[in-house]
């Protein structure tokens, strides 16, 4: 699709976007390949070898935890989970948000008013407590968490897409298509949707760090992923318990988490600048 190709070309003009994107890509790649080539398993415990500081010689580059498990492999697993949560939650919010927002914006009038009042109501609901309650009552599982995070994030997406659709609907090229006799679905697909791609992509990159943060927060509270699975948030949580004797258990996942969040934010901000500068030209 030409719209996507041009967004890609545009992204490559910004150094920040390219650099941060490169770092994210590298982290993702290592997190997939690392556990695969490492001799250690993320489940294997070794009580002769607990709380070992990182050393390359012993084969534990990130050290081991209080159960003697290899922290490199566990951290990489955590990174994978974090990325998956981020992507799934963003896709959920993207699908719901775009469909909901575009429908409200294009139909307009009463339907729009009712749909957006619903969004306002949901906004006012303290969702995070709701999620915590859910996770406490029901058995904790990853799926529930994805849905919960996506359900929080789609509200913003719906608002943004609706606003954009409303203004696109008034644009003259849409009126021109209506006059020609182009059908409504075709107008949405050929004239509205391609003009939404830019803003949606920018917004998704900005929601990813939010999703990661929520996941880490839940995991930190012990409500997220379950043992023996792990995520960066959970690793940080484990790390705080061993903060005094084994600071690496906190530092390594903490730094990684911060780096991932920062990079996503840089990509998002950089892209927003790119699109804003086009708007003001």
């Amino acid at each position, binding site marked *: 699709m*030409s719209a996507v190709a041009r967004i890609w070309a545009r992204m490559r003009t910004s150094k920040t976007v390219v650099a941060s994107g490169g770092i994210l890509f590298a982290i993702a790649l290592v997190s997939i390949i690392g556990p695969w080539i490492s001799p250690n398993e993320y489940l294997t415990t070794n009580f002769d070898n607990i709380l070992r500081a990182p050393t390359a010689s012993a084969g534990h580059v990130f050290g081991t935890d209080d159960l003697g498990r290899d922290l490199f492999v566990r951290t990489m697993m955590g990174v994978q989970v974090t990325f998956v949560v981020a992507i799934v939650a963003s896709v959920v919010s993207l699908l719901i948000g775009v469909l909901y927002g575009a429908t409200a914006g294009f139909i307009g009038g009463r339907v729009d008013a009712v749909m957006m009042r619903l969004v306002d109501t949901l906004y006012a609901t303290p969702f995070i407590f709701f999620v915590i309650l859910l996770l406490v009552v029901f058995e904790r599982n990853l799926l529930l968490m994805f849905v919960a995070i996506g359900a929080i994030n789609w509200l913003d997406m719906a608002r943004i897409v609706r606003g954009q659709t409303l203004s696109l609907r008034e644009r*003259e*090229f849409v*009126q*021109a298509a209506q*006059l020609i*006799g182009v059908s409504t679905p075709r107008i949405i697909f050929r*004239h509205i949707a*391609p*003009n939404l791609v830019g803003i949606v992509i920018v917004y998704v990159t900005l929601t990813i760090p939010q999703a990661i943060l929520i996941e880490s927060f839940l995991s930190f509270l012990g409500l997220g992923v379950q043992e023996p699975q792990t995520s960066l948030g959970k690793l940080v949580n484990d790390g705080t318990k061993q903060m005094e004797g084994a600071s690496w258990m906190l530092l390594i996942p903490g730094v990684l988490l911060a780096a991932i969040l920062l990079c996503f934010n840089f990509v998002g901000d950089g892209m927003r600048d790119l699109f804003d500068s086009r708007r003001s030209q």
Partner: protein
Amino acid sequence: MSLLDVNGLGVRYADKDVVSGLSFGVGSGESVGLVGESGSGKTQTALAIMGLLPGKAAISGSIDFAGTEIVGASERQLNTLRAERIGMVFQDPMQALNPYVPIGKQLRRVLLRHGISDGREVDQRVMHMLDRVGLPDPARQFRAYAHQLSGGMRQRVMIASALLAQPDLLIADEPTTALDVTVQAQILELLERIREETALLLITHDLGIIAGHCERLVVIEAGRLVEEGPTRKLFSEPRASHTRKLIDAAPRLDGDSPPAPESAELVLEADNVSVSYAERNERLQLHAVMDLDLQLQAGETVAVVGESGSGKSSFVRAVLGLVPMRAGRVTFCGQEVAGPLQARSIETRRDLQLVFQDPAGSLNPQLRIERIIAEPLTVHAPELDAKARSERVADALQRVGLDEDLLGRFPHQLSGGQAQRVAIARALIVNPRVLVCDEAVAALDGSVRQQVLNLLHREQQATGLAIVFISHDLAVVRSISHRVMVLYLGRLVELADGAGIFRHPRHPYTRALLDAVPVPDPLAPGGRLSISGEVPSIIDPPSGCAFHPRCRYAEQRCRVELPLVRPVGEARVACHRAEELEL
């Protein structure tokens, strides 16, 4: 010794010269016009004189302003120069005004910068200046924000702001391009009045404006000087062919109107069309169009003319079904077409096409030109295969005089004129019977505008296309209109055939519109002011004849009684005094 001396000026971006070897001067107290087509480097020259070019521009040559060299001057020197000696007025005043600060406060800053600090005196001088530039009720406007003013009023504020600094030179870059002709005439008259205080460099693409308001002319093309000299001499005996071309391209009021079409087949008829919009917060009805009729024959062009807000667009959009009608009937080829667009048959929708004012806005930025032009075929001729379709596209392209290598481009890669032709090609590809052009040439320069008008005329000759042509400028429509309807605040004030209305207008408003047109002739420049003020609010229109507050012939009866449209001579006019007035 001149005040401003530009010598061998060059402006270069990366590998592109936008201005090269340009030399001209402005004497103190003189008014000079800088003329050229869009993209010829006029604004770049102005910015160079103001020292406002962006850092990536490479400047060469010299600009001497009263002994100070501007090229290479320090930012500090430039600031002083701009604050005290050179004023500037831009095309879009909204961009130059701060939307969050009241007008009066913004103007006050100009004086404070000049070291006048006595609060009372400052306010008085600002108020006095607002009064001088013709802003009604200066005390109220003093506290108003930019968005509460009309375009013309904002431009007056900009001029006031420039004049408060008492500059030696005022640079005005297309100061009236965004305005109605009537308001344009008022602003030009204002610039004329302030000439005692300052020299003027007036930048424009419209030779009509220059003719009446500048002593000397500098014509440029592609960043180079074409010709320079006294205005009268250049108009009477231009040496360069480019100057000749610019003069010929400027719209004029004299000359012939096209002969009436032979056939008398009525294609489109609208009766008693009214359009109202609901003002959401005030629960008011805004009557944008009241009781308008239209009869359009095959091969005929009807112009719809009036100032901004007179309801031109609302009227044609209601006829096309884009906005709902409050009342009225539309008949196409003898059949009544039901109201909204979605309810109309696919054939009617094919036969009624519209071209918008903003060519860029009416083309989807994400689609290539080929797909844009071909889109109507996917609806109206889905049976065509790829080959037949691209033949039709090539044919449409040729009709509007465009090259085939544009097909692979995106809209932002086209010039305004090219984009407008693409929009016309898209409308013409399905061979409609009626083409509505809503200010379709307003955004285009003189010669490009003429080309588009010629193209429409040719198409009409060849296919019997009927055209409704909307414009706020009577001069633009003269050469193509068989009949002209003049609207004021949503009502018809005069309807007459082209030849008649230009030679013998019967309504004072039509007369005023004609007077306001600047004519490219230094001996009879037009652009006179037989109308003052601006269009009143349509929410609360004046009683009786809506035009009476601005009409110099108004009498008691006009204030209370609404004049009905009635035949006067060959025309139909809504004025109580139409018969007796000699306009």
